[in-house]
């Protein structure tokens, strides 16, 4: 990477890529940013790299966000409402209840003089105004004429507001019902998962290992391991009985050559059967192999040789 002292030099393509991924130090990133300011072709290449990264980002395993995330988001949006522009044309003259005759006789120049900004704005916008507020200059004359209508306007606004609240109330009721259905479903799924775990750990449950007739009986362990999720499911059969104050301990042998990771201790039952599920293992640890050792009650942080069973 070039330093600020030689910022005039060409930036390497690899460094532009690291810049796009924000993996450069602040100092290095500043140098690249400086080059980008004066180099359109480099900016184009950066845009292409960002496009490539966007494509690569889409290779992530897709998961739908929680159903309530949408509800939460829309509530948040509703709390931060924006002023809504109105796109109503107002080219027709304003119809007022009083002094209508006088208003009709008023010269256009006078009207514009009284409210210059409205007239000018209407010309510029082809007779349509974007926002429904008026200018300060027009206020004094107009206010006197519209005051009698304020009560009616307030009543109308109240009716509109009430209707809006009613609709929002109905919508919220629907959302609450939807949320309740989601919670019910999640509760049912959790109960089902709990039943499975209870059955696996039930000492009285019937456990049978099927094999060919007369086949030799050998100890066997089976792991199902998701490095990404940090979850491990382990079952073993035909394990030898173990001394009191001793336990079997399962180990994950990481693929990166680091120290074995303890992955649970267990006692086999009278038939040599054992199983357990671990969901709190460190995530992202790719396993090269698995092994089982015998350790003192309570387990160990490092495996004690010999390794009784191993698998890769």
């Amino acid at each position, binding site marked *: 990477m070039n330093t600020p002292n030689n910022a005039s030099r060409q930036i390497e393509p690899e460094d532009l*890529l690291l810049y796009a991924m924000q*993996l450069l130090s602040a100092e290095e990133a500043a140098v690249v940013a400086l080059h980008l300011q004066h180099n359109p072709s480099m900016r184009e290449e*950066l845009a292409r790299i960002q496009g490539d990264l966007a494509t*690569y*980002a889409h290779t992530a395993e897709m998961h739908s966000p929680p159903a309530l995330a949408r509800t939460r988001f829309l509530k948040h949006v509703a709390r*931060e409402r924006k002023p809504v522009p109105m796109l109503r044309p107002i080219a027709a003259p304003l119809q007022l209840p009083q002094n209508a005759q006088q208003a009709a006789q008023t010269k256009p120049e006078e009207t514009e003089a009284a409210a210059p900004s409205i007239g000018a704005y209407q010309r510029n916008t082809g007779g349509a105004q974007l926002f429904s507020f008026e200018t300060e200059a027009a206020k004094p004359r107009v206010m006197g004429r519209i005051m009698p209508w304020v009560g009616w306007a307030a009543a109308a606004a109240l009716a509109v507001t009430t209707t809006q609240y009613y609709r929002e109330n109905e919508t919220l009721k629907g959302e609450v019902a939807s949320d309740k259905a989601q919670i019910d479903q999640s509760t049912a799924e959790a109960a089902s998962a709990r039943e499975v775990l209870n059955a696996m750990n039930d000492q009285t449950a019937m456990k049978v290992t099927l094999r060919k007739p007369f086949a030799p009986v050998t100890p066997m362990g089976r792991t199902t391991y998701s490095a990404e999720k940090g979850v491990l499911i382990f079952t073993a059969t035909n394990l030898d009985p173990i001394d009191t104050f001793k336990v079997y301990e399962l180990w994950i042998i990481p693929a990166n050559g680091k120290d074995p990771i303890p992955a649970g201790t267990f006692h086999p039952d009278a038939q040599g059967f054992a199983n357990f599920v671990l969901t709190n293992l460190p995530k*992202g640890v790719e396993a090269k192999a698995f092994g089982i050792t015998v350790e003192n009650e309570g387990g160990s942080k490092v495996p004690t040789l010999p390794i009784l069973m191993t698998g890769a």
Partner: protein
Amino acid sequence: MYRDTGMQGLPAATTRDDASLLALVQRGDEQAMASLFDRYSKVVYSVALRVLRDPASAEDVLQEIFMQVWRHPESFIATRGSLGGWLAVVSRNRSIDQLRRKKPTDSVDDVALASPYNLADEAERNNMMERARAVIHLLPKEQRKTLEMAFFDGLTHSEIAEMTGDPLGTVKTRIRSALLTLRKAFQA
């Protein structure tokens, strides 16, 4: 719940393109914002979840990014290319910031992005995802892993070099080669 913005007689928000929806969002149309959320929340959430590996944190990133679109739709201008692509990249960047417990930098979202895909179209988006996954799957393992560590784990080239024992130059070259392969595969 949604306000009428006076835009009657136009197609339903869900069928509009991103630019039209953003224009409506700029006018405060909550239905248009909901449509953008429905269209892209899955990608944004999935990228954040891949980086952070924690659903609650991923949802925080999701909410933060879409609130940014709601508050400042004008910040996404046409020259930035694809909204879907931009959201995916910003989701990754925000997640990495959160991973490093770092405040989001302004430059993070100032992403000009050249993408030939219409990610607003679900079928095209899915097709692109499958093709990209296939290309990545065929990369040499070292390249694939190095790109993954840099992009999804946010590891610097020095950190990757330290972890893998490879020279710095090799790490940089692998990342670039992997992305170039991806680009070429889509240009072919």
